[in-house]
């Protein structure tokens, strides 16, 4: 069990890294892209917008203190 926990912790650290907000923004934007593209509306612009939003918020959050 502890090995599983160690593996899960490693994977979390490996994928999510320092700021979970970035991973969350990416996943939300991908879901939004899939939903809008699925409705037949052009959705290519959503992820670039997510890049700007995610990076800006993460930078300002981490330098706020």
């Amino acid at each position, binding site marked *: 069990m502890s090995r599983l926990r160690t593996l899960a912790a490693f994977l979390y650290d490996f994928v999510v890294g320092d700021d979970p907000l970035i991973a969350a923004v990416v996943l939300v934007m991908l879901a939004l892209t*899939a939903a809008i593209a699925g409705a037949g509306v052009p959705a290519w612009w959503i992820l670039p917008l997510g890049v700007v939003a995610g*990076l800006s918020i993460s930078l300002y959050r981490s*330098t706020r203190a």
Partner: protein
Amino acid sequence: MSSDSLLFIAVFLASAVEGVEAVTIVLAAGLTRGWRSALVGAGVASVALAAIVAVLGPALTALPIDILRLVVGALLLIFGLQWLRKSILRASGFKALHDEDAIFAAELAADRAIGREPRGIDGYGFTVSFKGVLLEGLEVAFIVVTFGSNQHNIPLAVLAALAAALLVIVAGVAVRAPLSRVPENTLKYAVGVMLTAYGTFWGAEGAGAHWPGGDAAILALIAFTLVTSALLGVAMRRRHARLPASFATSPPTPQ
């Protein structure tokens, strides 16, 4: 022009585009995380790719490529944004150059100082390289199978793809030496830009979006990511400059 010539040119060009993407990622991983990990990642991906092609053959087109693009794109985008974030924080002085990457950087520097490749495998370099080569390799395999079977000449399509791969690999080896002279922090920033751009492209395609201009959109995404991160870098430097002297402990590191 004969249909065979057209088939060769079409497969060659399409495979070269995919090959450039794969080689860019392997170069980025090799230059920043060590060549051993990047090349082992590329090698393992090539073996996995060969096994998939051998087992599936023409049934390859049934693989859920969009799901693969979505997963790989999401991971590359998360990795890329983390790298960009750290690079901007370092460049603006908010983060010291030697942080959680210090051990890896020290080992890399020590090995490089005596002209030796780093020992062991770096998981990050391996994974990035592996995913890039496997995904792009699968796309080349799809191109070969679809173009080749449409024209009833798969061997010629395979030959065109191999010629493109050879050309792109030779070009990659040629640019490796000049790239290795670029400062490490600048390379990390460049890798962040590339991973973010490719991750955005693949992630959106995997989620069902279509890019205006097709593969050429990657160039626009690289430019977009560069401009965005540069502007954020300027904003962070100004923010750091406004800090009281007692808080501004770490000097800006070169980009």
